[in-house]
C-alpha cells in the first residue's frame, strides 16, 4: 500500500512535467503515454507477488519490471527536455544517466556521485541479474534495487 502511494506520488510529478514537453519529436500527449507505460510496469512489479509463486523468479521479475520502468522514465525525461539527440547514441540506461550528468538547458545537472551510485547499484545490478544465466537476486537485494530505482526517479524529476 505504501509503495503504491509512493509510486502514484512519483508519477504525478512526471505527468506534470509532460505538459511542458519541449521536444520537436514528442508531443505532451505522447509523453503522457510514455509515463502511462512506466506506470504499467511499476504496477506489474507490485502485482507480480500475486501471480508468481516461486520466490527467485518473482524477485527477478521485480527487478526486470522496475528497470524497464526506469529506462522509459529517464528517456521520457530527456526527451521532454530535448536532451537526447536522435541517432547519436544507442539508447541505454547508462547512456541516459550520462546525459543527465551532462545536464541540459532546462534541467539541472545530475551530481556525479549520484550518477556513479545509479550505475553501480542499478545498472550493474540489472546487468548482473538479467544478463547472466542462473543468477537471481535475493529478496533483500531485489528490495534494495527497486527502492533505489524509485529514489533515483524522484531525484531525476527534481532536476527539472
Amino acid at each position, binding site marked *: 500500500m505504501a509503495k503504491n502511494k509512493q509510486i502514484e*506520488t512519483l508519477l504525478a*510529478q512526471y505527468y506534470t512535467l509532460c505538459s511542458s514537453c519541449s521536444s520537436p519529436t514528442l508531443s505532451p500527449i505522447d509523453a503522457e503515454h510514455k509515463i502511462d507505460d512506466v506506470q504499467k510496469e511499476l504496477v506489474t512489479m507490485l502485482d507480480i507477488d500475486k501471480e508468481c509463486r516461486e520466490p527467485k523468479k518473482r524477485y527477478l521479475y521485480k527487478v526486470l519490471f522496475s528497470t524497464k520502468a526506469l529506462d522509459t522514465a529517464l528517456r521520457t525525461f530527456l526527451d521532454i527536455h530535448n536532451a537526447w539527440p536522435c541517432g547519436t547514441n544507442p539508447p541505454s540506461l547508462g547512456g541516459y544517466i550520462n546525459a543527465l550528468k551532462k545536464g541540459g538547458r532546462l534541467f539541472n545537472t545530475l*551530481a556525479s*556521485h549520484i550518477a556513479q551510485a545509479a550505475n553501480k547499484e542499478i545498472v550493474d545490478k540489472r546487468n548482473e541479474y538479467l544478463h547472466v544465466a542462473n543468477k537471481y537476486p535475493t529478496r533483500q537485494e531485489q528490495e534494495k534495487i527497486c527502492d533505489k530505482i524509485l529514489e533515483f526517479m524522484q531525484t531525476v524529476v*527534481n532536476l*527539472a
Partner: protein
Amino acid sequence: MLSLFEKIVNDNPKSIVKPQNMFTIDNPDILIPANGNIFGLYFLKKKEIERLDLLLRRIYISKLAYFSKMVPIVFIDKKTINDIHNVDILSHFRFIYEYNDSTALPSFSKLFDECSMDYYDRRIQNRAIQRMWHIKLFSEENIEAIKTNQYKEIYSPSSQSNILIPSWPSKMHSIKNIYNIGDDVLIERECRSGFVDTFENILTYTLKYNYQLLDNGFLVENKNNKYNKFLNTNWDFTPNGNNLYYNTLAFMGLLPIEVDSISNLKKIAYTYSDYSLTKHRKR
C-alpha cells in the same frame, strides 16, 4: 455534509490523497495536478494549530523534496484561525486559503497565477538531495562501523539537557530528547521517549539549525548547514531497513549511527569527513 477536503477530492478526479514522497515523511495532504503544475494542499492538523513550527516544517521539507512545480497552498478553517499562535507569520506567504462551511470550491486553474512563486533557491534543493545520497552511500559502504549494536547514551561536559532553538512564530522553543555534543551538532536520543514525538523534534530542530526562514517566506541555508551531523540511536535506522525514516533523516543531513562512546563517534566523523573529501575530489 462533506468537508471542504472531501469536496476538493471529489471535484478533482486526478487528486492524490495523502501522497508519499520517497524522501520524507513530510507531505501535503492532497496533491492536485492543474495547469502544468501540482498544487500541494495543506490542511492544518490539531497539533499544527497548537505549534505552527510543525506546519512550517511540513511545508518546507516537502517543498524541498518534491519537484519544483509543486505549489503549496495552506487551507485554514476560519473557525480555528484565532487558535493559531502568531498567525501573522503565515502572511509572509501568498498561498493561504481561508474557508468556512459556505466557502465555494477553489478553482485550481485560476489559483495558479496567485500562488506561483518559488520559496527557495533551487540549489538548496539540489544540495539536500546530493547530501542525502552521500549519506546513504557512506552508510551502505560502512555499515559495520556505524551500526555496532552497542548503543549507549553518550554524555560529555558540553551536553545540554534540552536544546533551545528559536521558534519561527514565537519565542524560543525547547526541544526535548536530543543533545548537542561538541562543536558540531552530534545528537542522540533518550531511549525512554516515544518515537514519533522525538523523531518530529529531531526533524524540526535540524531544519531550523540548517535553514533560516526569511520575512519574505524564503528559506535560506544557515552556515551550520555545512557541518556533518550524526544521530546516535538504537532505533533501527539502516539504509536497507525502513527507507522512509532513514531517507527523511538523510535528507535533512543527519547520519544515523549506533555507537557506545564519543571516541567511536569521532572515528566515524573522521571517516565520513574523509569520505566526503574523496567524493568531492572525484567530482
